[in-house]
């Protein structure tokens, strides 16, 4: 029995969704609405006491870290290999996944939370929101939600995030000029990771990520978008967040 608790096919939730689709593995999908704090409700905290999503439950095994979760999916299940065979390419795949997770993602999500998540939840009753934040188990996530909900990002923090996103786009464009895929010669978990983070870059950063300035990134995103597994995964989206992927359609 395999169950995936996830939000939209986007960022961390989308990583195991796309990896499972690529492997052709069936799973029970449990959608949690991140903006409704479903992930902090008692029934989910029984699965993952940290209250973070996604979580993959495979028999009596519970996995809650999305990037290592993808390696588990590749190693555990039959289907096309999603990691290169040689140690050097695997190292490159993992290094770039850390670059996405630790460098680009926090900056992109800070911008995303300030313009999307924060305003979306800020409409609600303030007392109710404060209580919902207090229920968040991990102190670091509590701080993050408080900042997003109450718009506590400083101008300097947001400016630094914008600078890092621009720098990250340049670095990624250079990498994809030297290699067709993140790990080198073959499609891998590195591409799945990067796509989940970057599929909407042409929409959110149109002045920095476009056909004229970053043709390699654009081509890479479209190649992944055209994979049946990506189509299948993004069709599971319920909000405008996931539908942004349509802009990768070739015209």
């Amino acid at each position, binding site marked *: 029995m395999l169950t995936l608790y996830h939000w939209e096919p986007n960022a961390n939730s989308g990583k195991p969704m796309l990896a499972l689709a690529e492997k052709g593995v069936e799973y029970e999908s449990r959608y949690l609405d991140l903006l409704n704090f479903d992930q902090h409700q008692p029934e989910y905290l029984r699965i993952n006491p940290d209250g973070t999503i996604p979580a993959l439950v495979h028999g009596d095994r519970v996995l809650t870290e999305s990037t290592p979760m993808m390696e588990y999916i590749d190693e555990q299940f039959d289907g096309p290999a999603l990691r290169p065979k040689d140690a050097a390419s*695997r190292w490159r795949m993992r290094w770039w996944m*850390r670059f996405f997770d630790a460098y680009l993602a926090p900056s992109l999500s800070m911008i995303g939370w300030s313009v999307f998540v924060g305003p979306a939840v800020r409409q609600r009753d303030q007392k109710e929101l404060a209580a919902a934040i207090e229920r968040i188990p991990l102190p*670091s996530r509590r701080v993050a939600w408080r900042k997003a909900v109450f718009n506590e990002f400083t101008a300097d923090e947001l400016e630094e995030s914008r600078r890092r996103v621009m720098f990250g786009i340049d670095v990624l464009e250079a990498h994809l000029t030297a290699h067709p895929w993140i790990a080198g010669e073959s499609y891998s978990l590195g591409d799945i990771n990067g796509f989940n983070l970057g599929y909407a870059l042409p929409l959110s950063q149109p002045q920095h990520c476009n056909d004229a300035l970053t043709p390699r990134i654009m081509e890479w995103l479209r190649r992944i978008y055209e994979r049946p597994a990506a189509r299948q995964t993004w069709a599971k989206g319920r909000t405008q967040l996931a539908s942004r992927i349509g802009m990768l359609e070739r015209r």
Partner: protein
Amino acid sequence: MLELYHWEPNTYFLKPLIALEEKEVSFLSRWFDPTSFEQLEPGFPVDTESRLQLEREGPLLVHDGTRVSGSFFMLEYIAEAFPGTELYPGDAFRHYRARAWGQVLAAIGADVSILGCARHLRPLLEQQDRRRLQSQLGRIEPVERRAAWEALLDGRYDARALSAIAERLAFSLRRIEGTLTGSRWLAGPDYSVADIDAFALIAPLPALAPEVLNATATPRIVEFLARMRERPAVRRALAYTRSGRPQQAFVPGAEPSRWG
């Protein structure tokens, strides 16, 4: 040909030394002193990934021309590329657990590095001629890597900030303590890369933050550190020290979460 560019056997630099000694692989030790900025000198191997240095300053493994940076992924590379002692034992779920610990420990490493730099590196930098130091720091690219050095001098890490970091560490250490209460090793019943990762990053804490790592608060971690020190490979790795005080050797490490 296998070369390891490293400094004193502590934190990030200690990890590949232990793994290579566990594997009993012969390698060329290329010693450099990052506090003298020897990693910026011409001739030091560099590529996109090592220049970006997500861990700010760290070791570099060069294997038949392939440059491997990032200390946890270096452990995985050594585990996969060389025969010898199995450093990634068990099934897919144990491998997952080792990698998941790698993520938790990356955050711990960031905090340990700040405590260590504030205690040991900052006084060394403050003794230097400020203009000469600024000129050396000005050569560091990208800007985040330079900023990690400059942060030691701008007063950001005052007593309050360091105390908040120690508190954050206490939270993570409780998780390690909980796991070690039911198991000798972090990722399962067998020794793995996760144990090397943990030892390298938290071994300096009994001296740096005794209030969060001690025989009363974290007895299982204290036993784990002692168990690690008994391993011949760990002893050989620690013997690479030139100062005799490897656990005081700190340079800026990975960046703590920018979300606070």
